[in-house]
């Protein structure tokens, strides 16, 4: 499209922010149509990482699908494992021992912390401050050490099982967890001082891609993206599954403190504050955890009753909803996984109209998307 501005004819440029790009958090392709530096249209093209997990789910048993959920969101693999376990348990009405639930909550919240650290680190790295990324990685290594203690893996944990968890916490795990929390809590203030309230950083994020609350709900945003727009909806409180009702924690919402309510800065600060709340939950869980078995007696090839269930759990990137249909056989009949990042891509085109190219990067980072979750 050629426009004439005074004497100079200008033309829109179509640029491909290709699948390989340092800032797209995975293999995301964005087709930008720009007028100079201002974006007139940004269309996301997903599907580069589609592995057909839902089709695979129809061929494997319920227990065999657990490692696949690790690869669904590898930065929050514990949350995805537990989401699958809870969904199957809801379908088959399996009782999970209480110690197992506590362990699940502990690892889920620790994984929330490490996932938000990566979100924080990679976001600031996209904005040009390379240092906080490495600080985030350093703290995440401590969390990985804890996970290595409990299940042997540092990335794809495969820890939860249908009916409980695969192994009990080894001796020393709870003490080390407490040590980590004591070490990590003051670090959040340190990072806020370093980068969160840095004038340049705030200017890059404030008033960029404002999403009002009604729009966020209508577009199905969940998790920190929704709470950043001021909607105090957290599945851990509102649909309190597992042992979450026993813990006392706040729901973090965006407050529009540095710009408009619902801008990138709010979404970013919600994640920072959520790390604090996760620390609180883990502390309470470690204090309250009862003794007992960690795995219920579930036959290896069990057949749940015929039925359909939809289970939602609060993963760091939003709501991971698992729609599970069982026809009474050992394999699921249909499983659909609805993830927070997939839905965040829906609103991407609308929200990026009129932004600058540098802001596209800010928006992608503020949604905290991860491609395996989008593409499954």
């Amino acid at each position, binding site marked *: 499209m050629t426009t004439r501005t005074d004497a100079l004819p200008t033309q829109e440029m179509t640029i491909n922010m290709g699948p390989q790009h340092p800032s797209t958090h995975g293999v995301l392709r964005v087709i930008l149509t720009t007028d100079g530096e201002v974006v007139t249209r940004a269309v996301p093209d*997903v*599907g580069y990482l*589609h592995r*057909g997990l*839902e*089709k695979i789910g129809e061929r494997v048993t319920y227990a065999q699908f657990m490692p696949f959920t690790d690869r669904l969101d590898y930065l929050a693999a514990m949350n995805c494992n537990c989401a699958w376990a809870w969904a199957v348990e*809801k379908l088959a009405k399996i009782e999970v021992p209480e110690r197992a639930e506590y362990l699940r909550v502990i690892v889920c919240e620790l994984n929330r912390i490490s996932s938000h650290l990566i979100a924080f680190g990679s976001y600031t790295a996209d904005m040009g401050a390379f240092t906080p990324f490495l600080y985030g990685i350093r703290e995440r290594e401590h969390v990985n050490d804890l996970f290595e203690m409990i299940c042997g893996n540092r990335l794809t944990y495969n820890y939860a099982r249908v009916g409980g968890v695969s192994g009990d916490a080894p001796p020393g795990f709870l003490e080390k967890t407490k040590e980590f929390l004591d070490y990590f809590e003051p670090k959040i203030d340190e990072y806020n001082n370093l980068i969160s309230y840095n004038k340049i950083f705030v200017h890059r994020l404030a008033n960029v891609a404002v999403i009002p609350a*009604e729009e966020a*709900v*209508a*577009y*199905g945003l969940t998790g920190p993206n929704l709470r950043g727009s001021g*909607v105090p*909806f957290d599945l851990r409180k*509102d649909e309190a599954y597992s042992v979450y009702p026993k813990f006392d924690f706040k729901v973090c919402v965006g407050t529009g403190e540095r710009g408009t309510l619902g801008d990138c800065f709010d979404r970013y600060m919600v994640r920072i504050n959520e790390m604090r709340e996760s620390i609180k939950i883990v502390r309470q869980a470690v204090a309250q955890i009862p003794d007992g078995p960690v795995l219920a007696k579930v036959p290896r090839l069990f057949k749940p*009753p*015929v*039925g*359909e*269930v*939809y289970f*939602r759990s609060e993963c760091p990137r939003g*709501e991971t*909803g698992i*729609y599970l*249909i069982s026809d009474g056989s050992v394999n699921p009949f*249909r499983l*659909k996984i*609805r993830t927070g990042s*997939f*839905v965040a*891509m*829906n*609103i991407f085109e*609308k929200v990026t109209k009129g932004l600058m190219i540098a802001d596209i990067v800010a928006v992608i980072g503020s949604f905290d998307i991860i491609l395996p979750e989008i*593409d*499954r």
Partner: protein
Amino acid sequence: MEAQAIFDMLKGKFGDAVVELQGEGFSPAFVVVAPAEMNAVARFLRDDAALSFDSLMCLSGVDYKEKFAVAYHLHSMKHRHAIGLKTMLPRENPSLPTVDDVWPAANFHEREAFDLFGIAFVGSKDLRRILLPEDWEGHPLRKDYKYPDFYHGIKV
């Protein structure tokens, strides 16, 4: 609000378009609706004050061997209740009106259902394949899908 009450309200408003309530073994319960009335039912569910289902949680295609279905999971931020909607579609040319003007969240989910099942959503503002390449043939999540041997000359 209970699923039965929601079903009764819908039945009262839309009559025969509301087919049945699948309650036992379904969590949340599903209200099965005729495909043609989908948009109107969706709009009513969103706009009615007692229901106010303003959030579409999930929209999935399902292949029930004899027929297709599209399952909607709705949630209300105001009343904190949830319900499911389902429509059954024939295996040949499955199509139904879109709901992306009611809940914009539906767009990507409908594209996925179209991509993986071949269910056409009439009136959608953007119905293209989303996860698979544009020139892929077939709809993988169908139960009778045959895996292709080659794609662009590459052995798959």
